[in-house]
């Protein structure tokens, strides 16, 4: 009796193993006539909306465009891209496992980055150990410079939180010294790694420029009901409102500001403002809202990219991480072409050299040559700072009145 | 009746919200006697049992067991002090077998038994309550009467000084009742002190040395079964004319 039941369990186990074996091994062991690109990304879970906005459409569109053109040019051959994709379900542990699988089971040639600071940091050491380059497209970390030293083939494309805050503070300082705004700033941040990093940097930078922070608080991640915050801020007399928030909060804050008719001269909110969703939601009321990111829509390359993105994904790209991500994919493509082989070390060496021709102009992954501050102007999210950059638009000032809520 | 007092209850009071369940209860139990606790439904008998056994803390009053004040102590401490009980609706451990049910009583008493010693003692006890054949039967599969026996066995395993039986004889048919009465009588003869809440008059008459009768939370009579059951107040409130 005992033996037979053990046998049964053993059979069950054997069957399971066989099933898993086929599942695990099915995809591998093919001849090198394709370039295998893998990625694990948050298709589900809390990271999914972000990944779906700024990363997944770009990956898919890039692969399609490359393959439609016959593939990657390697030497004199055209090699199509083959994709292995996984859902990391927004979990660090899943991401780590998926990357291990891409490396060891699928033996992919290149791995594209997951979405978000946490997951990019979780997979960075593994990619580094296995010698894969890491184009971290959606991570903002003040440790970015140290990280690129620690893992030498890693590129932290969105840079540090401080740079956005400093650029914003410098920009506001100019307005203040022009006498356009008073020195009072109300700042709110989402209690999350990103929001806290930016608000810390923002606090430092604003105080350096003699701004007075009349409101400086955080709200919990997941809270969308921010009516009381906006109501309180409204009474404080600040000309500048700064929110380092995530899309649901950004939309919530904007809506409450509109309902309460809180219309500061500078209304800065984001992440999320540069998303197409924002324009769809608020229409004409988006006009004049300031956020991080931006695009030189007059630049034909950018305009063409936006057009193709709409055609491919059925919606506009966001005007911040999408653009940087696309530039990094263009860089990768050119690095492979320049290396003339699919050898990983050769490609990594090319990536390190930089000088790629992208929608951000001549670009080396990690360059911060994109807009740090942008504004909705006439249905376009344009770049306004650094003011020294080509195509910097003049700020619409002060922010026009809300129309929707009256 | 000259024996020493084992349990002394005085000034016991318990209210649930606005409802006073037990009001100024006072009685003694002498060593080796069986005390019957009678009264209409809802008169507070089970509450008294719960107050004595520590299932509930009283609002006021005192419970003293063999000179030790056990008022408001937690149930497990009172159990260690020497009080064991059965429940109005029989409570066994249904997924455990009979041996384990008895072991539950042996393993956590003062001077606990565990391992082989517990097995031996449990088998002896099962023998004593007539369940020797059911050592490995899950308690949930026993018949009603056997569950009652098992529950009693578990209480006895605690080696109590005082045993509380809450309607332990209820729901038995007359022949089972005779067996039950015989078993309780045997326990008494072994020197155990017992308080029993019971409605079965035959059992009260044949077992109890003394009865306390309650009505609406207060004591209305205290004495031998004969005197108590003839008390007009008791007849009016509890027995009705049929038993007069």
């Amino acid at each position, binding site marked *: 009796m005992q033996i037979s039941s053990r046998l049964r369990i053993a059979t069950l186990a054997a069957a399971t193993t066989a099933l898993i074996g086929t599942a695990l091994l099915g995809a591998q062991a093919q001849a090198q006539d394709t370039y295998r690109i893998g990625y694990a990304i948050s298709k589900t879970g809390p990271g999914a909306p972000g990944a779906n906005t700024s990363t997944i459409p770009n990956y898919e569109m890039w692969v399609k465009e490359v393959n439609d053109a016959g593939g990657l040019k390697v030497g004199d051959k055209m090699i199509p891209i083959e994709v292995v994709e996984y859902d990391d379900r927004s979990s660090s542990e899943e991401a780590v496992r998926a990357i291990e699988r891409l490396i060891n089971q699928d033996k992919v040639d290149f791995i594209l980055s997951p979405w978000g600071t946490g997951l990019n940091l979780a997979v960075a050491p593994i990619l580094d150990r296995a010698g894969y380059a890491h184009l971290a497209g959606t991570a903002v970390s003040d440790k970015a410079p140290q990280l690129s030293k620690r893992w030498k083939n890693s590129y932290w494309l969105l840079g540090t939180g401080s740079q956005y805050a400093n650029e914003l503070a410098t920009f506001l300082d100019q307005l203040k010294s022009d006498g356009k705004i008073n020195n009072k700033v109300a700042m709110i941040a989402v209690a999350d790694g990103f929001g806290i990093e930016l608000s810390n940097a923002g606090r430092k930078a604003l105080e350096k420029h003699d701004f007075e922070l009349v409101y400086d608080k955080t709200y919990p991640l997941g809270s969308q009901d921010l009516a009381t915050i906006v109501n309180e801020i409204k009474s404080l007399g600040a000309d500048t409102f700064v929110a380092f928030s995530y899309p649901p909060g950004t939309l919530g804050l904007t809506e409450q500001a509109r309902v309460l008719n809180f219309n500061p001269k500078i209304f800065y909110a984001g992440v999320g403002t540069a998303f197409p969703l924002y324009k769809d939601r608020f229409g004409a009321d988006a006009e004049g809202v300031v956020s991080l990111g931006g695009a030189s829509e007059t630049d034909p390359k950018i305009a063409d990219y936006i057009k193709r993105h709409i055609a491919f994904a059925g919606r506009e790209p966001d005007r911040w991480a999408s653009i940087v991500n696309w530039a990094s994919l263009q860089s990768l493509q050119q690095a492979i072409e320049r290396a003339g082989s699919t050898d990983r070390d050769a490609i990594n060496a090319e990536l390190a050299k930089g000088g790629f021709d992208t929608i951000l102009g001549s670009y080396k992954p990690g360059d911060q040559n994109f807009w740090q501050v942008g504004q909705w102007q006439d249905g376009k999210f344009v770049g306004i700072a650094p003011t020294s950059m080509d195509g910097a638009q003049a700020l619409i000032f002060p922010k026009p009145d809300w129309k929707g809520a009256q | 009746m000259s024996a020493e007092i084992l349990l002394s209850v005085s000034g016991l009071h318990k209210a649930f919200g606005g*409802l006073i369940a037990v009001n100024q209860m006072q009685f003694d139990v002498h060593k080796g006697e069986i005390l019957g606790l009678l*009264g*209409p*439904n*809802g008169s507070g008998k089970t509450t008294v049992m719960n107050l004595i056994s520590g299932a509930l803390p009283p609002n006021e009053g005192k419970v003293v067991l063999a000179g030790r004040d056990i008022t408001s102590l937690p149930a497990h401490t009172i159990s260690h002090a020497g009080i064991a009980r059965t429940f*109005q609706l029989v409570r066994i451990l249904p997924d455990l077998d009979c041996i384990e049910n008895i072991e539950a009583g042996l393993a956590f008493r003062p001077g606990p038994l565990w391992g082989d010693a517990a097995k031996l003692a449990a088998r002896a006890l099962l023998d004593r309550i007539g369940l020797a054949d059911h050592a490995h039967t899950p308690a949930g599969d026993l*018949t*009603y*009467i056997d569950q009652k026996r098992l529950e009693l066995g578990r209480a006895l395993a605690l080696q109590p000084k005082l045993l509380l039986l809450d*309607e332990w004889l*209820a*729901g*038995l*048919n*007359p*022949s*089972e*009742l*005779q067996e039950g009465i015989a078993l309780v009588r045997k326990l008494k003869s072994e020197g155990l002190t017992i308080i029993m809440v019971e*409605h079965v*008059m*035959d059992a009260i008459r044949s077992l109890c040395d003394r009865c306390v009768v309650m009505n609406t939370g207060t004591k209305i009579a205290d004495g031998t079964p004969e005197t108590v059951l003839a008390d007009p107040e008791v007849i009016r*409130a*509890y*027995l*009705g*004319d*049929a*038993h007069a």
Partner: protein
Amino acid sequence: MLEVHKLSVSYGKHAALRDVSLRVDRGEIVVILGANGAGKSSLLKACAGLVAKHENSAVALSGKDLTDLAAHRIVEAGLALVPEGRGIFGDLTVRENLELGAFAKRARASEKENLARVIDLFPKLSERLDQAARTMSGGEQQMVAIGRALMSNPDILLLDEPSLGLSPIMTSDLFKALTAIQKTGVGVLLVEQNARQSLAISDRGYLIENGAITGQDTALALQSDPAVQKAFLGLGAA
């Protein structure tokens, strides 16, 4: 009239009832006597549709076949059960409990009269109508349970050990009430441990042993049957 024909019930491999047949007429009280575990409760539950019956079993009420009906339809057909442990809705008030008794469509038209009848039968309930049922004493809860069953305007009332846990005075009140119910033309099928008092009010009785009927007779005859006296009335009972 309730007719049970060759009723069999089992739980897993254990047969609780084997080919039990019996009959209860309107206006009579029939008692079932048997040891614990003999299958008395299973019999009532099977009649009320709470446990599954074997294939060839049949239960009929005034010619209507109840065998395969769901419990709520059986109530609708005129058979009400007061279960062991009463089964009242403790969190609801006494009034709500009684009103629910008249949830059956058959009882809605006569709800007012039935309520008056129940209050008449158990006057104590009239002061307690708005009290949560679980705050009442055991005897009063039993009144609610019986009252609730009567509110469904049953032809036949089944009671499972109604006197369990009741004081002597409550018990005799209960049996008096059953006689009163009988007088209104309702048939009563009673399962009881208290053989002496239940036989005293019954018209007929059945003896059940190990899931099968082992005897039946008028209550008077059973009271004087030595075997019954020995097994159920207690030897040398007063």
